[in-house]
């Protein structure tokens, strides 16, 4: 099988290194341009099974704010990101909520937890809103 060269821009940090990953027979055989291990790991995964962190909001009842920002604890397979967000759109919690609280323990059977990015207090009780 012929080798393929994949140009990849790293999203691991704001440096935004560009590089290339060479894949032969479905295996990564060479990598150029990534300046750290995190970037190399990202690039290797990006050519075979890309993943992204997911952030969105869920509804909150009885809180100082109507929405709670949430984040996945690990990156989600890229082609499941939109599914995750639509599932989370149907979630509604009741205040108070503390930063780090688990919002969904295992979304879509991916084995990934979604947690609260911030605290939201009960309405009218001051900080946290």
């Amino acid at each position, binding site marked *: 099988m012929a080798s393929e060269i994949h140009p990849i821009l790293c999203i*691991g940090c704001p440096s935004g290194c560009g590089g290339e990953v060479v894949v032969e027979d479905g295996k990564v055989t060479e990598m150029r341009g990534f300046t750290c291990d995190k970037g190399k790991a990202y690039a290797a995964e990006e050519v075979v099974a890309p993943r992204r962190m997911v952030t969105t*909001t869920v509804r909150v009842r009885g809180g100082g704010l109507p929405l709670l920002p949430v984040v996945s604890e690990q990156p989600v397979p890229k082609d499941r*990101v939109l599914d995750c967000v639509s599932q989370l759109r149907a979630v509604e919690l009741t205040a108070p909520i503390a*930063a780090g609280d688990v919002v969904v323990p295992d979304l879509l059977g991916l084995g990934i937890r979604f947690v609260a*990015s911030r605290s939201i207090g009960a309405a009218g009780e001051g900080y946290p809103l």
Partner: protein
Amino acid sequence: MHEPYYDVVTIGGGPAGMAAALGAREAGADKVLILERDRELGGILQQCIHNGFGLRRFQAELTGPGYAHRYIEMVEKAGIDVWLDTTVLATAPGGAVSCVSPTGGPQTVRAGAVVYAMGCRERTRGAIRIPGSRPAGVFTAGAAQRMVNMEGYLPGHDVVIIGSGDIGLIMARRMTLEGARVRAVFEIMPYSNGLTRNIVQCLNDFSIPLYLSHSVVAVHGHDRVTGVTVAQVDSHFAPVPGTEFELPCDCVLLSVGLIPENELTRSAGIHMDSVTGGAVVDQFRQTSAQGFFAAGNVLHVHDLVDWVSREAETAGQSAARFAHGALGGTGGALAVSAGAGVRTVVPQRLVPPTGDEKSVRFYFRATQPLQPAILALHADDNVVWQRRLRVVKPSEMVVADIQVATLFQGAENLTFTISPATE
């Protein structure tokens, strides 16, 4: 009337204000006060729900609210006073800060030192002069971000984004995730103004096209926006005849830059840098007015909150030292200028070092993209320091720490340049 006294008062309770207040406490200030006009601390971070904050500051990848949360907890533990819903009206020499709030009414606080940490705001349609009618549906990207992430409204379903600033890119993804169609991002410059990682994960991931050297030349619609006309621009940013095309949309988002919010600073008569839009400061972040410091986006627009926190911590520590008489005024300063290839440099002045510091951290923005480049420091006519940079982009701040011994060699002028390097 009783006027409360604080050693250090920060104006603003976003990332800069909180880090400055903490820096002041660390440096020994007993009484520290944060004045915040919003209903909670955290500033703009509270609406930046995406992740990627804190890699340097916390060695962790946090969301905006997550980053704010860590600082809010530190502020609470440090015994710093916080007045929310409080708007500062003016600052006067000697450290009088006049403010007003719904519960406290108008009052004056006496400060040993003041840190300006008001942040920045978005450039609006008026500021970039887009022709066309004035229908509803045109928002700055940050206003849309607040609507979507904090209030729960979608400002439109069919979106065009003007400008490739990071907030616009982040909103391209956010609106797509919420079910809107984002047709394209148009950037007038021949290069993107956002971080590479945001081009990849916010545009490329969703096949949203980015048109460089393109400008919106008309906005259509009477009550609600119905579409835009776009044209390619030449090297003088003039539309190229014959390249116009139309796109329908019900929402236009602007991400065309940020402006430091310096009404208070200007009305205090403080010396400003016309390019950064912030005050001229020395390495301690002291402005031309003794006892008044500035840090964060009010001083110069940063691209990483981690650098905002770091800079503000320095300003807060210096403010505490000033309040205790351990830091001098603004005299005897050496000018630092932005030479060829450098658009901005902060700090713009250096006062004689106090003895504890080994190096001074400088922040730069380049005038144009270069790959690779040399950042050089000229002391009078001699190059006394230089560093090779792999890539330089106007949208990405360059940071360099330079030894005090290199900076203070008796030169009268210090100038930084960024020039192309050979491969």
